[in-house]
């Protein structure tokens, strides 16, 4: 943490949709206060001007999906004292990690007229699979207030308060009626990390696990329950392999449900 003056902030993009970077710009009411405490030194989504590194804090959006990215993330680590991944892509590989279960060459041939122009890795992986990460902030996209909390905690020199318990904690505190129990809607909230403020259940929808598995997630029990209530195996595999399917224990449980020889229930 900088003793005086402003901390130098860098924001990087890898394979991603830019939504998490936009969460920073969405901090409309807090942006001026933030700009007083940090110098936005590198943030191509927001400004063309670039101050050279090293930087105090680096925020990384996106997964590592190309050979070029696998090299660049090492440079990014070198120039940042405190490296934070923001969002599902950077933290779990994101939605593009679905390729990890598929034939990437076949995808290229199907999608692109000239597949030979495409240089990509066979897998999309989280940043932490490549370099040491100081803090991982979950979400698809991240919650902007959690982002502010991480930056504020860094500037104050304290631990950020980012709970790792289930979405149900936020849902019950909000006074929602449980969509699973009262409506029969399959919901991943019980095994998903809090952070969104139970957004989907507040609008009578099941949780999609945008924030990845909670610290104590037991997907097997929940999925067994879903099967008893009529969901098919492929449905369960698709539910687990959403935004964070490549994070454990979602990965292992979805693999088990995909392979026919393991039976539950």
């Amino acid at each position, binding site marked *: 943490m900088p003793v005086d003056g402003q901390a130098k902030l860098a924001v990087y993009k890898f394979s991603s949709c830019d939504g998490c970077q936009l969460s920073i710009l969405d901090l409309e009411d807090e942006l001026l206060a933030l700009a007083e405490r940090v110098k936005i030194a590198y943030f191509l989504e927001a400004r063309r001007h670039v101050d050279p590194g090293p930087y105090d804090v680096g925020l990384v959006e996106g997964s590592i999906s190309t050979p070029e990215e696998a090299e660049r993330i090492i440079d990014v680590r070198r120039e940042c004292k405190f490296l934070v991944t923001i969002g599902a892509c950077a933290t779990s590989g994101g939605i593009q990690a679905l390729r990890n279960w598929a034939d990437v060459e076949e995808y290229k041939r199907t999608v692109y007229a000239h597949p030979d122009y495409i240089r990509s890795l066979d897998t999309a992986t989280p940043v932490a699979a490549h370099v040491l990460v100081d803090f991982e902030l979950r979400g698809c996209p991240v919650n902007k207030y959690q982002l502010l909390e991480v930056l504020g905690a860094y500037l104050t020199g304290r631990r950020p308060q980012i*709970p*790792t*318990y289930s979405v149900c*904690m936020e849902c019950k*505190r909000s006074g929602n*009626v449980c969509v699973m129990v*009262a409506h029969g809607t399959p919901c991943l909230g019980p095994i998903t990390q809090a952070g969104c403020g139970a957004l989907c259940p507040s609008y009578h929808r099941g949780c999609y696990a945008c924030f990845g598995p909670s610290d104590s997630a037991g997907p097997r029990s929940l999925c067994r329950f879903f099967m008893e209530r009529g969901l098919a195996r492929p449905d369960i595999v698709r539910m687990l392999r959403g935004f964070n399917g490549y994070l454990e224990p979602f990965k292992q449980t979805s693999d088990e449900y995909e392979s026919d020889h393991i039976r539950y229930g």
Partner: protein
Amino acid sequence: MVGNLYIIEKARLDDLIRLLREDGCRVVGPTIRDGAIVFDEIASAEQLPRGWTDVQEAGHYRLERRTDDAYFGYVVGPYSCKRYLFPPRQRLFSITRNGRPLSGFDVDVTSASPPRIAFLGVRACDLAALEIQDRVFNAEYADPYYRDVRRSAVLIAVNCSEPGGTCFCSSMQTGPRCTRLFDLALTELPAAFAAEAGTERGRALLERLSPQPADRNVQHLVELMLESAAEHMGRALDTRELPEILLQNPEHPHWNRVAERCLACANCTLSCPTCFCSNVEDSTDLGGSRAERWRSWGSCFTLEFSYHTGGFSRSSVRARYRQWLTHKLAGWHEQFGMSGCVGCGRCITWCPVGIDVTKEATTIADDVRRADVAERGARERSR
């Protein structure tokens, strides 16, 4: 008049709500929201779920139409009075730098004047839960917010004549009849309410509702209805020696079987009317000039709950479930002189995967009791 049974017309219910509001109370009563009957602020009897009932099973809750137009023909919803006395999130105080050399900080202790609440339709299990919460929050070291809301709260209770699928208050000896704490207790009859005042405040309210003394037939009918309700609980729990059995069998294999199903999601504890744990967190603003301290509902099912220097003392889900159940059904007796469970069934209904506290405790207890009997038999044979 206190303690005697009276009859009031059903139409007086709306008058009762109006009177309470005129007295400056927010009336909090059952009403339908998002497919469930929840406690919320109401302004008239029209907002009550008249003609509706709830079907409750483990991990299952649905509303259904009744064949009659009863006002209180259902049991408890996902939340209890706890929400109003011990709010899910509350700012305790804030500190702001004032730039002065000596004092340095301004401290603002949250002292919002608490609302005066009249709870309408509180059931016997929830009254028992209030009694428990009183020992937690309103005893030697009182929580000021709880104390203030509780002191001014008006409690209009309703006796349960039709228990729900996950109810077991008769096992816990907390219901279905309201026996304490209430200002006014109603029993819904087909064409009227039987009403009993429990306090002077309740008597004063009742007097304004044109009460007629109930004759012996009505008294007898109320008795029969509540006796029948006690015999038709959806669940049961044999509490004989249960605290000893649970505390003496921390390694029983059934704890593992529950842990395989438990999601550690904390729904049971947050819907429980007696669970009182909270988490206290400090936050700072970006400029470093202001800090706030917040209290929010916590749960022994979270990993962070047992975090201390050296790590987590209950990292397994098994340890957390066992902690919760043994505290609720056993440790509570030592701590507060009563069980922590009132038999409302919320933890059963609102568990997303339908884990049933009565079944889990019974499985362990029956197993231990059977083993005890077998051991005794073997001893006698060998004599």
